[in-house]
């Protein structure tokens, strides 16, 4: 039931205005903080105000302008879009608090916060895009806004990372554009409101080319294995950037793009007869295993987290590629279940680096004694990734396995088990070093991270537990994911 | 083919002149010579336009008392008048540029100027 409403466009504009104000008036610290925090809170309120409505199945629509019939800019907050928007706006609030604390001593903060707000406005815009063209517009704007953040430190290494990031993402963007043009050429519309606009009477190899272009383009940002090169090198950026962008906004935009392509552009039944998703599932499975293997040997803490992100993201791709209701629920829900623990881990890494200047895993010996709460939150996040019950990660693995059984892909179960073991292999040593190893010298006294860093860490860790335990409670995002799945599979 | 060329020999002549002008512009080195080649090309085109308007045994289109048809067509002559003025203007500008180049670089040989760049 479509309702005409201003809120889908209001959310991105709020942070757009905030970015503008930060650029204009950002010199003065207090004004800047005021604008960032108020925008974050306001946006969360706007997005949350739409939550009850969309839980009841209402879809908020806002059509802006269309150049010619079928091509234009429109916003539509359906269940899938709402899910992603809720996740990213809640996380934006916590990351803003964290960033204010983290960036105290840094330079160029006006530019940092301005582009930071711009990025999130494009992410929410992405979530509410009504057609592939609006989606592409915000997708490209996201690349442009994240570039200055990646090269924030202005070191030659940062430039190389930025150049690599740009080459990957722009080539991906070009593929998506060509794919979108082919979709429009084949069907005459780009709208993402139906469960699938392509049909099987379009020639097989055109469909294959469209699938390859769209999924290829999106998987650059979703860091699927062959195209993941830019993510580890982008760890050079300051932690709030890596936390929000490379754990939530940018990579999730790619994953969200894949979900949109599979569910709204192709549609589940078309993909079932055409069968393109089998190779995709294989690649996703391979990425899960290979990324975890590489993560084990990464000594730098943030690079290890980066490879773990790559492997976790492929859960979403795998879930989407299995084309069964349960797997789809797992894929959608994993956006949240991966976002919160991953962001907690990056916050922890940032806090440790800010507090003790340690960046490599072997230096972490005995850190648990000095920063018990921070490492406690890290352990909670680690448990969720390993898939322990009562934590968010368990739900994804559970539904993914159910989905795999449904579609009789038994190899997926093996992948689940092996990946849990590998997760344990690269997270547990950290916990062991932190708590069961004596710290060098006599640093026994507790020296916690400053409150502006610690509070977001603890809240996110709490969220991980809440998401794990209260999935079936009606008000929780889980029901949004189920609503989206019902719409896509037409149940 | 040759017969067609023969009865349009005026047009052929202007085409030949056109190509000679083009040759001079490309091959010659001195700027003044290039500029003269341009003028030759212009004259070639104007001669072609005027040749278009000719009628066998035609008189200039002036309606005097003793004027007898057939008259040559007036339009090409009007066009050429305008064309000649365009040629004059291009000449004026080209010469001013050549004067300026000579005063500044002391030479108007294209290859020496190229080294100077």
């Amino acid at each position, binding site marked *: 039931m479509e309702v005409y409403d201003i809120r889908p466009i209001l959310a991105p504009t709020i942070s757009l205005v905030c970015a503008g104000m930060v650029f204009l008036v950002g010199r003065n610290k207090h004004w800047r903080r005021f604008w960032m925090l108020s925008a974050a809170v306001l946006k969360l309120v706007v997005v949350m105000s739409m939550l009850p409505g969309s839980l009841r199945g209402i879809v908020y629509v806002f059509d*802006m*302008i*269309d*150049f*010619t019939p079928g*091509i234009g*800019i429109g916003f539509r907050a359906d269940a899938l879009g709402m899910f992603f928007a809720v996740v990213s706006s809640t996380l934006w609030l916590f990351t803003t608090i964290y960033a204010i604390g983290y960036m105290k001593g840094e330079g160029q903060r006006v530019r940092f916060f301005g582009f930071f707000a711009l990025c999130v406005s494009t992410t929410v815009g992405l979530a509410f895009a009504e057609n592939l*063209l609006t989606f*592409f*517009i*915000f997708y*490209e*704007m996201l690349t*442009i806004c994240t570039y*200055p953040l990646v*090269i924030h430190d*202005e070191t030659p290494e940062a*430039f190389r990372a930025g*150049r690599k990031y*740009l080459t990957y993402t*722009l*080539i991906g963007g*070009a593929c998506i*554009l*060509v794919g979108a*043009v*082919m979709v*429009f*050429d084949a069907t005459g519309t780009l709208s993402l409101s139906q469960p699938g606009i392509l049909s099987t009477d379009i020639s097989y190899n055109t469909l294959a080319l469209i699938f390859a272009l769209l999924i290829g383009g999106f998987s650059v940002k979703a860091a699927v294995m062959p195209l993941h090169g830019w993510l580890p090198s982008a760890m050079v950026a300051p932690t709030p950037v890596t936390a929000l962008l490379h754990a939530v906004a940018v990579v999730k935009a790619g994953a969200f793009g894949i979900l949109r392509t599979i569910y709204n552009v192709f549609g589940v039944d078309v993909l079932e007869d055409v069968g393109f998703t089998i190779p995709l599932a294989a690649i996703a499975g391979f990425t899960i295993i290979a990324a975890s293997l590489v993560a084990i040997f990464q000594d730098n803490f943030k690079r290890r987290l980066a490879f773990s992100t790559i492997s976790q993201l492929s859960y979403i791709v795998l879930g989407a590629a299995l084309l069964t209701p349960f797997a789809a629920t797992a894929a959608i829900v994993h956006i949240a279940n991966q976002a919160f623990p991953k962001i907690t881990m990056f916050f922890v890494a940032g806090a440790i680096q800010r507090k003790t200047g340690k960046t490599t895993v072997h230096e972490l010996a005995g850190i648990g004694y000095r920063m018990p709460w921070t490492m406690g939150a890290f352990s909670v996040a680690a448990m969720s990734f390993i898939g322990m019950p009562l934590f968010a990660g368990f739900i994804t693995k559970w539904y993914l396995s159910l989905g795999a059984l449904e579609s009789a892909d038994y190899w997926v179960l093996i992948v689940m088990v092996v990946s849990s073991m590998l997760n344990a292999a690269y997270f547990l040593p950290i916990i062991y070093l932190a708590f069961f190893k004596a710290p060098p010298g006599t640093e026994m006294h507790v020296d916690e991270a400053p409150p502006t860093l610690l509070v977001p860490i603890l809240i996110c860790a709490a969220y991980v537990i809440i998401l794990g335990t209260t999935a079936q409670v009606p008000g929780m995002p889980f029901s949004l994911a189920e609503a989206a799945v019902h719409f896509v599979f037409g149940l | 083919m040759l017969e067609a060329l023969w009865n349009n020999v005026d047009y052929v002549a202007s085409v030949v002149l*056109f190509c000679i002008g*083009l040759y001079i*512009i490309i091959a010659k080195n001195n*700027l003044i010579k*290039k500029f003269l080649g*341009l003028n030759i*090309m*212009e004259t070639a*085109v104007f001669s*072609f*336009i005027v040749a*278009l308007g000719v009628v066998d045994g035609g008189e200039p289109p002036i309606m005097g008392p003793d004027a007898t048809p057939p008259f040559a067509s007036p*339009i*090409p002559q009007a*066009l050429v008048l*305008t*064309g000649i003025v*365009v040629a004059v*203007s*291009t000449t004026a*500008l*080209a010469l001013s*540029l*050549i004067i*300026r*180049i000579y005063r*500044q*670089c002391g030479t108007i040989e294209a290859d020496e*100027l190229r080294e*100077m*760049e």
Partner: protein
Amino acid sequence: MYDWAHWLPLAILTPLLGAVLTPVVSLRSRHVAVWWSLGVMTVTSVAAAMLIIRVALEGPFSYLPGGWEPPYGIELRFDEFSASVSVIVLIGWLAVLYSLRYTEWLREVPKQRIPYYYSLLLLNLGGMIGFVVTGDLFNLFVFLEILSLSSYALVAFSGEHIAEMAAFKYLLMGAISSLLVLFSIAILFGLTGSLNMADVATRLSSAESVAPAALALGMLTVGFMVKAALFPVHIWLPDAHSIAPSPISAVLSGLVVKIGILGMIRIYQIYNTAGVIDMHWLNHVLVWLGAISIVMGAFFAIFQDDIKLMLAYSTISNIGYIVMGLGLSTNFSIIGGSVHVFNHALIKATLFFAAGCLIYRTGYRTLTDLRGVGHSMPLTSIAISIGAISIVGIPPTAGFLCKWYITLGAFEAEQPFFGFALIFGALFIFIYYIRMVNAFYFQAPTHPEILEVKEAPASMLFPTLFLAGLCLVMGILGRIPLAFIEPAAQRLLAPLGG
């Protein structure tokens, strides 16, 4: 019998008359010249606005100076493609305002020349308006001459040492191309007996032999290719557009180069309705030349360090886009090509204006010298970054529309290769623009005094920022140019059953 149409001759003659009177007006003091030119351009803008409103309401209309019906007199035909008068007038007005401070700053130029600078600029703009509006072949040639002559002189105006040589090269190639155009107009006149475009088109199909019509088509296309600086005949453009003073480079790169394109559109109009020649192989040649121009322009631009030379090469590759759009000659690709005529003018003018501000304040032209200017001249650098983003075609900006429509047209014409070439060609362009943005913001300045440089003066900054804002918005406001271009594209393809 006052009716709307009297604005049409007014729109052409105001700038020309204004130009003729500029030396008279600035007898007392040369500063009057710029205000006089602004007044003249404002009147022209009003005229252009009225004409555009009329074409929007009633579709193409024509005016008959002297009262003679079309084949017997000159017919001024104002159709949708002539609506590009709007961008000519807009950028013209801003260029005049921009030159207020810029011409004072040109050291080597003696001050008595400045009135002639403004009269040449007004002649150039008047010639372009005339070219775009006329429906008569020979009148087209006359206006083509006015705007070409004034552009050669304007290129030679700046005191740089090789300005005259670049202008002379430009003059030679421009004169040859004008002669080719005149020669083919004469052939068409010989074949059909009339000079009015619509009349020539109808009578051409009944001409007894095809060879001269084909020759005329070939020569017209080559002539207008030289004017539009397409691939094989583009060699004059880089020197000419980089040596010229910045407001003039903006007018040259943004508008004068587009005149070649509009000339080609006029040829398409004639030969499509005449239908005497199969345009298929010509389209193919144009598409290939467009593709080579894109790659070649982008490739050369990467190795340039001088900022204006880089922008000049990027003009060549953008002309490649437009010609490819025309060459594919499907409904969407022609829309894409014509929209880019409009949008590229805005983007390129922003970039040249901003580059002019940088050179005006710092005196440096190369990227290595201009490092770190982003901190001391924030507004100009933002304008350049917006220009850079829109020339690459990132969605919300003006450059995106053309890529979208031309790629769509490429698929519509079953030639997907060009769609791919176009999109990935654009990435080439991004490399040298990211170098520019990096140099401004993220690299340590090579000349320390660059940090104390003041922001550009208001009269130069306003045009830059206004156009930059327009670039940003044009991506979304694409409806306005599209509303004009769609009917025109349909009419252009109608005879081919397009």
